[in-house]
């Protein structure tokens, strides 16, 4: 039951919240960190006044993320295929991927999504990190490098970003999950280390 009524027949898990009904359903945790309608709380988050707040904080985060990316592009410009490897956007994307891995471990997995602030994922994940990283600039730079007669750089950039991004998100998520895992010898079990300030 969504506000618009379009949800009938949509991805509503059987058996109500949690999708733990009769049918085997391996879902429950989000695959899509922006919004995953398999997660009941995220289905509901656009309802009413809270929905306006969610969209507003995503917009604010998107503005901040885009500004930070622009700063990196000004510092390390791609030059439209003429000046070689686009280190600015490359760095932005890998950094953003590492941080989304950390963020989702903190607020989107392992039951912590239920204790996290309702605006943490929308603001930091959808807004700031989603606005910071970019796919379109990346694809356009690959195309311009190809057109400029630099297929080697184009392929290195294309493949290097994908491999680096997946490695970065894995490393970020693994490190944060390990730090949060209960019953570790050194750390206080289950206590959330103060990495919130770094998740920007």
């Amino acid at each position, binding site marked *: 039951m*969504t506000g618009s009524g*379009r*949800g009938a027949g*949509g*991805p509503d898990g059987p058996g109500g919240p949690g999708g733990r009904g009769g049918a085997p359903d391996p879902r429950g*945790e*989000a*695959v*899509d*960190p*922006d*919004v*995953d*309608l*398999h997660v009941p709380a995220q289905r509901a988050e*656009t309802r009413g006044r809270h929905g306006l707040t969610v*969209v507003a904080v*995503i*917009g*604010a*985060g*998107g*503005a*901040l*993320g*885009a*500004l930070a*990316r*622009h700063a990196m592009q000004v510092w390390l410009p791609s030059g*439209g295929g003429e000046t070689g490897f686009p280190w600015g956007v490359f760095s932005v*994307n890998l950094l*953003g*991927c590492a941080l*989304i*891995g950390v963020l*989702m471990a903190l607020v989107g997995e392992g039951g912590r999504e239920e204790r996290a602030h309702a605006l943490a994922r929308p603001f930091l*994940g*959808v*807004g700031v990190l*989603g*606005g*910071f990283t*970019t*796919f*379109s*600039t*990346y*694809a*356009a730079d*690959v*195309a*311009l490098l190809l*057109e400029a007669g630099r297929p080697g750089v184009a392929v290195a950039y*294309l493949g290097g970003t*994908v491999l680096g*991004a*997946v490695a*970065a*998100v894995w490393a970020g*998520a693994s490190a944060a999950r390990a730090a949060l895992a209960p019953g570790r010898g050194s750390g206080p079990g289950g206590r959330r280390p103060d990495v919130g300030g770094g998740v920007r």
Partner: protein
Amino acid sequence: MNWLLVAVGGAVGAPLRYLTDRAVQIRHDSLFPWGTFTVNVAGSLLMGLLTGAAVSGAAGPQVTALLGTGLCGALTTYSTFSYETLRLAEKGRGLQAAANVAGSLAAGLAAVFLGLALGRGLAA
């Protein structure tokens, strides 16, 4: 001035990604991240169009800052794309994870080239 335009574009692009993602997901009961795929390909098409128009002089630096760096940059995302790929792989759906990567790259690049051709045609 360009910084303000980038911020405004980003403030529109990120919510547009979120709302598009929801609108796509509500029509598909699939774990495959079609919503993110959609925004990344659509944003790449628009970015190609703007880049082509900029090269041929039809779009100035302010239009590029607002719609390219700001709107397209925030509408599309690499962080969401890579986290989805990781999650699919972790759920034992390696084939979907690989298809997400290969499909997004192929469709995104094709969209940029189409946009570039259209954008250059605008000023021709």
